[in-house]
C-alpha cells in the first residue's frame, strides 16, 4: 500500500515540478482564456441574445456566460498538454522507466491523471481570480462548489489525453490532435454559445454539441459555479471519463498495443 502512495506522490510531484519549471506554460495557460475573455467576449458582448437559461436567474453579459467554458478550455488544453508530455516521455525513454514499475499500469496512469488534473485545477482557480479582478465574479460559495466539478471534468479530459497519447506515435503528429480533437471539441460545445443558440442555426450542430462530452463538462462546471447540481451533466461526464479511462488502459496494455510490441 505504501508503494502505491509513494508512486502517487512521486508522479504528482513530478508533474508539479515540471509545471513549476515551465513558467511560460502557466502564462500561456492563463493568457489563452484571458484573450478569449477580454478580447473575444468583449466583441460579442451584445451578441448572445436575451434568454435566461439555467443556472442563471437573470440576464448576464457574454463575459459571464463564457467563464465556465473557458475553465473547461483550460482543463481541455491541459489534458492535451499532459498527453503531449507523455509522447515526449515515450520518445525520451522516461516512460519506459515509469511503466517498468511493479505497480499495476492502471494505477500509474491514474497517478499521472491525478497529477495533471491538480495542475489544471490550480490554473482554473488562477484564471477565476484574474477574471474576478476584471469584475467578472461568481457567487462566493460557487468557487468552492466548483472544485469537485473541476476535478471530475479534469479527470475526464485528462483520460482523453491519455487515450490520444497512446495513439500518437510522435510529437510531430500532435498538431493533428489540435485540429481534429481540441478545436472541434471546444467549438462544438456549449462553451461559447448556449445550445439553444446552436439550434437556431442548425439542428445537426446542436445535436453534435449535445453529445460532445466537453459540453457536459462545461455545463457541470457552469451549474457548480452557481451552486446548482446538474445530475445529467455529471452522469455524462463520468460515463465519458470511464470510457476514456478504459480506452487508455487498453491503449497502454503491453499485450495489445504497438507500444507494447516495441518494448
Amino acid at each position, binding site marked *: 500500500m505504501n508503494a502505491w502512495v509513494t508512486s502517487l506522490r512521486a508522479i504528482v510531484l513530478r508533474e508539479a515540478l515540471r509545471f513549476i519549471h515551465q513558467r511560460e506554460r502557466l502564462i500561456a495557460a492563463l493568457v489563452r482564456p484571458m484573450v478569449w475573455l477580454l478580447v473575444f467576449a*468583449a466583441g460579442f*458582448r*451584445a451578441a448572445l441574445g*436575451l434568454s*435566461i437559461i439555467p443556472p442563471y436567474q*437573470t*440576464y*448576464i*453579459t457574454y463575459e459571464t456566460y463564457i467563464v465556465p467554458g473557458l475553465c473547461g478550455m483550460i482543463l481541455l488544453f491541459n489534458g492535451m498538454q499532459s498527453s503531449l508530455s507523455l509522447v515526449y516521455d515515450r520518445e525520451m525513454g522516461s516512460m519506459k522507466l515509469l511503466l517498468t514499475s511493479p505497480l499495476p499500469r492502471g494505477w500509474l496512469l491514474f497517478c499521472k491523471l491525478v497529477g495533471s488534473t491538480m495542475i489544471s485545477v490550480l490554473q482554473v482557480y488562477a484564471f477565476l481570480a484574474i477574471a474576478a479582478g476584471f469584475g467578472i465574479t461568481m457567487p462566493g460559495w460557487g468557487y468552492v462548489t466548483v472544485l469537485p466539478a473541476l476535478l471530475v471534468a479534469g479527470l475526464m479530459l485528462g483520460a482523453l489525453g491519455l487515450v490520444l497519447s497512446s495513439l500518437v506515435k510522435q510529437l510531430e503528429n500532435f498538431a493533428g490532435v489540435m485540429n481534429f480533437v481540441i478545436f472541434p471539441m471546444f467549438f462544438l460545445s456549449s462553451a461559447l454559445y448556449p445550445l439553444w443558440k446552436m439550434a437556431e442555426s442548425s439542428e445537426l450542430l446542436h445535436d453534435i454539441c449535445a453529445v460532445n462530452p466537453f459540453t457536459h463538462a462545461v455545463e457541470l462546471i457552469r451549474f457548480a459555479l452557481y451552486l446548482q447540481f446538474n445530475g445529467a451533466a455529471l452522469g455524462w461526464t463520468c460515463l465519458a471519463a470511464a470510457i476514456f479511462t478504459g480506452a487508455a488502459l487498453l491503449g497502454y496494455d503491453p499485450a495489445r498495443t504497438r507500444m507494447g510490441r516495441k518494448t
Partner: protein
Amino acid sequence: MIRIAAALALMAPAALAGEIWVTNEKDNTISVISTETLEVIQTYETGERPRGIIFSRDYSRVYICASDSNAVQVMDPETGKILHDLPSGDDPEQFVLHPNDRHLYIANEDDAITTVVDTETRKVIAQIDVGVEPEGMAVSPDGKIVITTSETTNMAHWIDTETQELFANTLVDSRPRHAEFVKDGTEMWVSSEIGGTITVFDVADQSEKAKIAFEVQGVHPDRVQPVGFEFTAGDSHAFVALGPSNHVAVVNAETYEVEDYILVGRRVWHMDFNADRSLLFTTNGVSGDVTVIDVAARKAIKSIKVGRFPWGAAFRPTN
C-alpha cells in the same frame, strides 16, 4: 435571551413583507410579486392598457391609469376588485397622488392637459394646460408644487397647487419622461429619453443645477434612453432605467456621477423598491419580466416573468 433573539429573528422578515404591483400594458393585467419569495403570487384584470400605478397613503386603494379605457381605476388591493373609475381625461399615462391623499394629478397625453381629480367626490376639480404630450408627474413633499413634463414641448411645467396654475416652465432635453423631487424637495430631477440625460433643478429658483449623461459600454448611444428612476434610502443614489440599453444606471446623487451600470431585461422602464429599499424591482417591457436588483451589491439577482409589456411598479407592505 435566546427566546428574544428567536422572536426578533421571526419578526425581522415579517417587518419587511410586501408586494410589488406591476401593470402589464399589453395584457390588461396587474402582476403581484412577493418581495420575499420573488415570485408572482397573483394576477388581476384591469382596464385597457394599464400604465401608471399608485397606492393611497394607507394602501387601502390602488389607482391605475387604464390609458385606453380613458379612466383611472380604483381597485381594492385585498380583493383585486375594481371599485369604480375616476374621471381622468383622455389617455391618462402617469399620475401622482398629492400628500393630502385626495387629489390625483394626471397627465393626459393626447390632450396636452394635466387633470386634477378629487378621489373622494370623484370629480375633476381642475384642468391645466401644459405642453404637448404630457407624461412625467411629480409632487413636492410639502404638496405645494406639482410637475408635469411634456414629451414634445420638452419642458417641465411647474404647477402651483393652491392656484392650480403654472408658475414656471423650464426647458429640458428631448422627450422628458419622468420627474421626482428629492432631498426634502430642494431638488427636482427630470429624465429625458431621447436627450439621454437627467436634468437636476434647484427648486428654489427653478434653475438648472446639473446635467447627468450616460454611456453604457458596448451599447450605441441612441439606445441609452433614461426613463424612470428612484432613490435609495437617504436619497444618496439614484437608480435610473435606461430603456432599450437594457441597463440600470447607479448615480451618486451628491456628485451627479454615474457609478455603475447593471444589466437587466429588455427596454427597462420603471421601478420600485421593497420596504427597506434593499431590493429594486425594474419593469422590462420587451422581455416581459421584472428584474430584481440587490441594491447594496448593485447586482441583478433574478428576473421574474410577468405579463406582456410590464410598465409601472408600486410597492405595497402586507403587514
